[in-house]
């Protein structure tokens, strides 16, 4: 076993001693990954991992480095990028990834990518297969 592999195993034991909590947290995160397109409540996400919402938020931040809400927004924007790249319309993408308001979608998209959804779509349209248009 290499020096690095040994260090990883040591760190795993020291930093993540409670494996069941990590498992529960991952379960909640998977719930976000699978249901990001629907309106999600914090209570509901935390309950998926059998955690109280306050403990869930604290644990999520310590393991993933961001809040569950920030992660949810990130997942939605990443999926929006794919759908925009595939040629779907702004309003269809907005609804599909779980945003209720087009205005807040545009604002968050610009904040996280540096582009408006329309300019992002234009920039990536040359990567699309010829003739592939859905809007």
């Amino acid at each position, binding site marked *: 076993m290499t020096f690095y592999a040994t260090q990883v195993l040591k760190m*795993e034991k020291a930093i993540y001693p409670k494996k069941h909590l990590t498992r529960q947290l991952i379960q909640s*995160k998977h719930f976000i990954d699978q249901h990001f397109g629907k309106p999600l409540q914090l209570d509901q996400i935390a309950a998926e991992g059998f955690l109280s919402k306050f403990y869930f938020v604290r644990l999520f931040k310590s393991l993933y480095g961001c809040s569950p809400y920030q992660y949810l927004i990130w997942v939605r924007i990443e999926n929006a990028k794919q759908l925009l790249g595939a040629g779907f319309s702004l309003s269809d993408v907005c609804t599909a990834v779980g945003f209720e308001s087009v205005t807040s979608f545009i604002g968050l998209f610009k904040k996280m990518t540096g582009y408006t959804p329309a300019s992002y779509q234009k920039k990536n349209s040359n990567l699309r297969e010829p003739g592939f248009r859905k809007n």
Partner: protein
Amino acid sequence: MVSDQDKALKFYTEVLGFVKKIEVPMGEHKWLTVVSREEQGGVELLLEPMGFEPAKTFQKELFKAGIPLTAFHVDDVEMEYKRLTQQGVIFSMKPTQMGPTKIAVFNDTCGNNIQLVQML
């Protein structure tokens, strides 16, 4: 930093699945970059020639200790491990869970360990 740019280009494109972006001859070496197939307008990975003697020592020691030079994010480490081992890639660390991540480390055949990371 790669020990052989042509060998590196072959490995990073044909085995790992990157796409060549820039190849500009610069005397003995070249400015050579590859990008992710899924995000060809994204970050470019420079396959930099090993032209600085002390860097060779650094690379050699990192490699010996099994420390990755860099890491690539993937959707499924187990799947990549299976795909790459079938192509003869050698892993110094099999897929291993590290808290909320799963990691694995392989030899890029050009003097480096590369880590794959999956957020679980």
